[in-house]
Structures are given as C-alpha cells and as structure tokens.
C-alpha cells in the first residue's frame, strides 16, 4: 500500500481531524451517561429534578452524531447492504466503493451548506433554546462542523481510490460479520 507523499500527508491530516472529532464525541457519550445518572440522583436523593440536565443530554446527542460520523466513514463502517458489493472483485469493487464515498462527500457538502444557512438564520432571528441564555445556533453549529469533516474524509477516500491506491480500513470482503451489527438493530 504505497501512496505518493502528498496524498499520504493529506490522508494522515484528515485521519487526525476525524479522530479528534471521534474523541470529542466519545466524551459527549460519557457526559450523557453522567448527566442522566446525576439527573436520577437529583430527583431521588435531593428531591429536586433538574430539567436542564435532560436538555443538555439531548444536545450532546447532536454532538455525538455529527462528530463521530466522519470517523465511522473513515473506517468504512457506515451501514449498507453488502450482499452484492461484497461479491465484486477488482475494478467493479473499486467502482462501487468510489460511488459510495462520492455519495457521502455529496451528502457532506449539502449538509455543510444547509448547516451554514441554518446557523446564519438562527443567529439573525435570535432563536433561543428552552434554557435561558443559550441560543439555538450553539447547538446547530455542530452540523456544519461535522458535515465539513465528513466531506473531507469522504473526499480523501475518493481521491485515494482514484489514484489507484487503497484507502485505510477498506474492507476486503474476508470478514464474516459486519463490524458493528448493533448499529443495524440486529
């Protein structure tokens, strides 16, 4: 798996960024766990429910989705149907993978653009959350950020494929079980 230096550098930089996103998202998951447990504790032990905690836990979900999705893409983990593509070999397989990564890049681009519009609109109108003093766009900003990262990751994968190289983590069809069946509800 040899790549030209520039491509390898870009791929590594993108991997770093998407890894950072995944770490932040993992912190969000742990915070979610913490908030929910504290919220239960506050109700039972302090007799004082704290609705703010529940709202914050809801926002953390937004962070989890948008910051971890790029890393899932980098690992080619996103859920799909691989009965057919799993049986392809050679050029056909490359073509299918390229189509997949390009479609993700397009989604990333569309989400980036609409995410920026959404944030701009919310700031202009001054839409607020249910928690006093917190504007909605603080949470919405995860959308363009995550979408941008998703687009970068997918573009880097597509570029690698077009150069005739193998992107990292590309499944080779030898695995019996998909990498995370839990995400398929199975």
């Amino acid at each position, binding site marked *: 798996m040899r790549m030209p230096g520039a491509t390898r550098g870009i791929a590594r930089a993108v991997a770093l960024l998407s890894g950072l996103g995944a770490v932040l998202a993992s912190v969000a998951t742990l915070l979610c*766990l913490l908030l929910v447990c504290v919220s239960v504790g506050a109700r039972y032990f302090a007799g004082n429910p704290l609705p703010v905690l529940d709202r914050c*836990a809801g926002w953390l979900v937004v962070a989890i989705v948008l910051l971890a999705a790029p890393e899932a893409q980098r690992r080619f983990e996103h859920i799909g149907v691989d009965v*057919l593509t799993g049986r392809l070999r050679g050029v056909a397989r490359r073509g299918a993978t390229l189509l997949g990564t390009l479609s993700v890049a*397009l989604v990333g681009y569309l989400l980036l653009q609409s995410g920026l*519009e959404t944030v701009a609109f919310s700031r202009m109108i001054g839409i607020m959350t249910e928690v006093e003093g917190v504007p909605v766009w603080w949470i919405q900003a995860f*959308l363009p950020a995550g979408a941008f990262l998703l687009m970068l990751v997918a573009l880097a994968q597509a570029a690698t494929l077009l150069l005739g190289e193998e992107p990292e983590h590309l499944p080779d069809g030898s695995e019996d*079980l998909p990498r995370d069946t839990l995400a398929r*509800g199975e």
Partner: protein
Amino acid sequence: MTFFLLLAALLVLLYLGLPMFAALFLLPLGVLLWVEGGLPALGELVLGQIDGYLLVAIPLFMLMAHVMVRGRVVDDLYAAAFAALRGVRGGVGIATVAACTIFAAISGSSVATALTVGKIAIPQMLRYGMSRRGAFGVVAGGGTLGILIPPSAPMVLYAYVTETSIGALFLAGLVPGVMMALMFAAYCFITEGHAVAPEDAPPPENPAIALRRAGWSLSLPVFVLGGIYMGIFTATEAAGTGTLYAILIAALIYRTLGWRDLLDGVQEATRTSAMLLMIIAAAAIYGYMLTKLQVPQELTALVTDWGLSRTGFIIAMMVLLFLLGLVLESFSIILLTMPAVLPVLAQFGIDKVWYGVLLTLSLEMALISPPVAMNLVVIKAITGAPLAEVNRSIIPYMLMLALGTALIIAFPGIALWLPRLAGYGI
C-alpha cells in the same frame, strides 16, 4: 404505488454500494428536486430529528450493550442454564434456549445473543449428539429473542419514530418473548430428545453454585426492567443507570472490565450511535418527501380501495415486512416503512404498541431469512458450516415465529396485558 416504486429505487441505490444514510439522503433530495424544483431546508430537518431528549436512550443502550459484551458479564449464564437443565429430555437444547432468553433480557441485540450463546452452546450440543441442523437452528432462532425480549435496540428506534413510550413497548415484548422461548424449548423437547451426555462428560455441576456465580449478571435485567416496571426510572434513565450498574458489576465484581475495555467500548458505542443517528436524520428527509408526495394518503386510499379490514391490513403489512426482511436489516425496515404506515395505523385505530410487537416479530424473521440474515451469518462464522446447511436449519423457527405472529394478531392481549397492568394508557 409511489411508495413501492420509491422502495425499489432505494434498494437499487443500496445494492450499488451507497451507505444507507447517503441513499436515504440523496434519493429523496433527487425526487424533491425533480418534482418541486427545489430542496427543503435540510439543516432544520436534520437537526430537528436528532436533537431530542428521547434519543438520549440510543447511545446509552448502545453503551450498555458494549459494556456487557466486553465485560463478559454473561459468560456464566449458559453454564448455569446447562447445569440446571442437562438432566431433562432435550435439555442441552432447552438450556440453549434458556441462555438465549436470559441473554436477550440483557442485550438489545440478536446478533450479540446468538454470537455469545452460540460460541459456547453449539459445541456442547453437538457433543451431546444433537443434529447439526437442530443445534444451528436453536441458536439462530433463540438468538432472535434478543430484540423481542427487552431491552431492544429496534424497539427504542420504533418508540422514537412513532412517539410511543419505550417502557410500554419493552413490557409488551416480554410475554411474547417468553411465549416464543417456550415454543422453541418445546420444539427441542420433541425433536432433540435423543441427545444424551457422552460417555466422557464431566460430572454435572451443582446448579445452585452455577446460579450463584451468574447471580450478579441475572440482577441486571431485574434492575433495568424492574426499574422501568416499578416506575423508578424512565427507559432513558434505566439505560443510564443500567450502564453504570453494568460497569460496576463488570469492573468491581467480575473484574473483567479494565479502563482500556471501557474506553474502547465508549468509542465503539459512540460510532455505533452516530451511524444509527445519521440514518435517523436522513430518514427525516425521506419522511418529508413521502409527506410532500402525499404517500401516506395514497397508501390509506389503497388500503380502502382494496376493502381491507384492520386484520387484513395487518396481515398485508406482515407480508410486506417479511419481503423487506429478506433483503434489509432491522433499522432500515423501521425507518423506511413507519412514516408511510403510521397515518394508516391512526386511521384504523391500530394500537402502536401492539403493532410495534408485531413489527419486532417480523424483524426476528428477517434476522433468519436469507439472503440478508445476520443470525445465519453468525452461525456460519462460529462453525464454518456451509450457508446452505445453516439456511435449512431455520425453517422450523421461521414457522414458529409465524405462528407466534398469528397468535398475537388474534390475541393482542398477549402483548398488551403487561403494559396495561403497569399503567400505560393503551
């Protein structure tokens, strides 16, 4: 007909290699661009879908499952079930069903159930002289209980999409789950009664000792479901406190979970949640397209034109779900059908909890119906058996699941009795 055309178009994209979320995003956008000449406000649609307290349950349940699998919290379960049941006629198979049932009550996943129980149980069953078909079938079939007996990841998603109470759905799955388990056990009793301990089998373990060892892991479902049932927590809170409880058991009592395992589990659960939630977000756009194209109205009209009764409609849906289940996995089936079906349910006054249980049963069938059948892939992965042999093993289990579905259609009380008792207004 629009609905079926759209489903077909989506399948084509998926089979071309597009990830589910990308296909669910791009197809509706393409259609909307073509029909309306413009795109909707994507940002609001996507964010509106994923920003909500109800969704917090998803990463938490994912984390709980990862902690329990990594912490090997349930490794002793099969040993305990086996110790208790090895003397019974067909006992080695029935123990597998029992272990699947208990594991199902802990994990939200059928694959995790089949994988964990199958690894230990299949070699044991074969040693006892069960037929290969019988041994494969009971793990594949028993494994599907993972999503019917709560907690269940597909039920969490269904509850979110249809705005049904997660607690009510969980309780509604319990009795049907036990019913299916009893049916599976009866089948083992009848067909695999010839299985006996081989000459060189070690002396039987004292069941009481084995059970005591498995006690802490058995307390987990009691904690989670009891907590919901007794009204100590909501389902989301049960996921949170249950995860904490699982971490404590695995780290402090079984000492099977180190920091490294925990952090890996958190990272995986996070990515898993992100993948699922991306699909949920994309499904918002798909649902928006269906609404704009007035597909629910069309479907309602179609049902009326055909003069379908409530039961007729349910049966037609079960057939459609079975067909989709051949080629798609659980979450996609829920997300692709519910936006169109929900208004029809309302029209007919069909209870969403009841329908949710029926849907889950059809998802169980999907798990063992080839070509896309995850539990069969699990058996193949564990045993290396040819897929054709594995495929044949599940026919009786398919039939039993169909029978179970028919029973719950005929007697909704099987599913609804428990949630009603717990005070859910359904």
